[in-house]
């Protein structure tokens, strides 16, 4: 774990990602302090350009754009965090059960295959359509699509743990199955889970934005990046800032998460780690630096 963190700290793109994610999280947490009242509608100050009506201007309802963005971050990150946590719990349980009970596995894995190959956003839309609008269905839909990849990873770890000698001996010593699971499967799968969770988080931020943009996500009075964008098209000719800032916020957040996720994956993959170090060692030997840089570049993975 320590080596993982160390090699992560030497990966510039991962550190950029981490910094972006940290700043946005901080802004979201401090939204009430840094911004004004997101519910304050000032019809007289609609569509003010950045600088005049506030640092980033005002939207079509006269709300301060900067405040709306800050609270949009709270919404996005909050929901994405909730969904990711729920999905980790559900995915972990599913994966462990599948890894241990073969007959459950046969059925559940088919279901997971089906869910994984279907386009996420379409599935979530249809679930919202069946269950009705509101935070509950949206949370449910977004969580359901995150579970399959997590369950797969955990299942693989559970299958390995099942046949590992130390688990056999733990069982022979009379350890309870549930204890064995927790003791061996959790650490085995934790590193891959972190990567999956980061990527899932990014996908969820995108999905919430898309749903809100379509107007079937959150209630209209909740500030969100996607909902702001749906007004942008209508006012494109007079207020470019409504279309640019919320989109940039989504892009930055997702980009930060993806860079961080890629970096985490590389840091946990020993081969990639070795190559990253190889690239650094080139500084010591001027003669070979070009050559090593070429090799290390060609070996690094990014997706």
């Amino acid at each position, binding site marked *: 774990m320590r080596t993982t963190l160390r090699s992560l700290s030497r990966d510039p793109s991962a550190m950029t990602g981490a910094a972006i994610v940290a700043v946005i999280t901080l802004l979201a947490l401090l939204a009430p302090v840094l911004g004004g009242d997101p519910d304050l509608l000032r019809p007289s100050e609609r569509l003010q350009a950045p600088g005049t009506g506030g640092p980033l201007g005002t939207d079509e309802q006269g709300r301060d754009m900067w405040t709306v963005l800050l609270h949009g971050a709270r919404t996005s990150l909050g929901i994405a965090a909730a969904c990711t946590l729920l999905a980790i719990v559900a995915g972990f349980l599913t994966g462990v059960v599948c890894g241990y009970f073969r007959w459950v596995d046969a059925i559940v894995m088919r279901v997971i295959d089906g869910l994984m190959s279907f386009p996420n956003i379409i599935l979530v839309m249809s679930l919202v359509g069946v269950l009705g609008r509101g935070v509950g269905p949206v949370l449910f839909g977004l969580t359901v699509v995150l579970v399959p990849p997590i369950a797969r990873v955990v299942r693989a770890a559970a299958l390995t743990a099942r046949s590992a000698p130390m688990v056999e001996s733990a069982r022979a010593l009379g350890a309870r199955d549930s204890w064995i699971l927790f003791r061996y499967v959790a650490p085995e799968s934790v590193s891959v889970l972190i990567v999956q969770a980061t990527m899932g988080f990014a996908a969820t931020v995108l999905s919430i934005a898309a749903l809100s943009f379509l107007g079937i996500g959150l209630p209209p009075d909740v500030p969100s990046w996607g909902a702001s964008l749906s007004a942008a098209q209508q006012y494109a000719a007079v207020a470019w800032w409504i279309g640019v800032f919320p989109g940039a916020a989504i892009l930055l957040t997702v980009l930060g998460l993806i860079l961080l996720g890629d970096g985490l994956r590389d840091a946990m993959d020993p081969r990639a780690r*070795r190559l990253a*170090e*190889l690239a*650094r*060692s*080139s500084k*010591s*030997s001027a*003669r*070979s630096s070009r*050559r*090593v840089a*070429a*090799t290390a570049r060609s070996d690094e993975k990014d997706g």
Partner: protein
Amino acid sequence: MTTNSTDDILLDVRGLDIDVLTPEGPRRVVHSLDLTLRRRGTLGIVGESGSGKSMTATAVMGILPETAIASGQVLYRGRDLLSLPARERRAMAGREMGFVFQEPMSALHPTKTIGAQMAAPLRLHLGLTRRQARARSAELLDLVGIPPSRGVLDAYVHQLSGGMRQRVMIAMSISCEPDLLIADEPTTALDATIQKQILDLLAELREELGLSVLLISHDLGLVSRYTDDVVVMLDGHAMESGPTDRVVSAPESGYTRGLLEASPRLGDSPDRLPVIDKSRFTKAVQ
């Protein structure tokens, strides 16, 4: 060694050092190595994995991995290959020297037919047309014991058996009639019975085409049956070199003696496999 006129020497390696870049910095894997291969002669390099023997072979061929650097002299017909420009060096590969890899399965392209892979150097070096190259490839396959009726030219590598793949590899390596053939553990990936067939094939081709052969192997017993001279390597150093008969019958180095004892013989069923304590010899070297 008997005195040779310089004309008689095809390959003369002098003070070859090879450094590999590692996370901890450059590491020397071959230390001032000397090799001499006479025209139409055979030279074996024997050593355990990690002894630097394969690195030496790839350095001679000019196909070292990008993370490795060779210095010293590799004289081929009196010209130092290490000081040649990359383009000239590359042009010699395939034309002047052929290389047989250890793992034909991965050394052959997965999605190109054998015929296409064989034709490329024939067209490049010999200027053959597509049709001529195909005819020549069929002849070459015949030469290594694959009759045209097998349809190998249109096959892909995964459709062939292990022995067949290595025969194809050999046919490719000699296709432009090189003078030097470098075989890097050519039989390690094969079954014991096929091993002998392949080595006999190499010996036959050497006679027929007048090749000089550099044979790399971890098996001193095997090398002793097919080479005139041998170099025994340990951790990048030459421990012993000389005529194979002499090295095998009266080894000077204790390490060579250890290798000889470790090499399995037919009918032998030792209770324990012999173990060589490398550290004893490594100390002597340093």
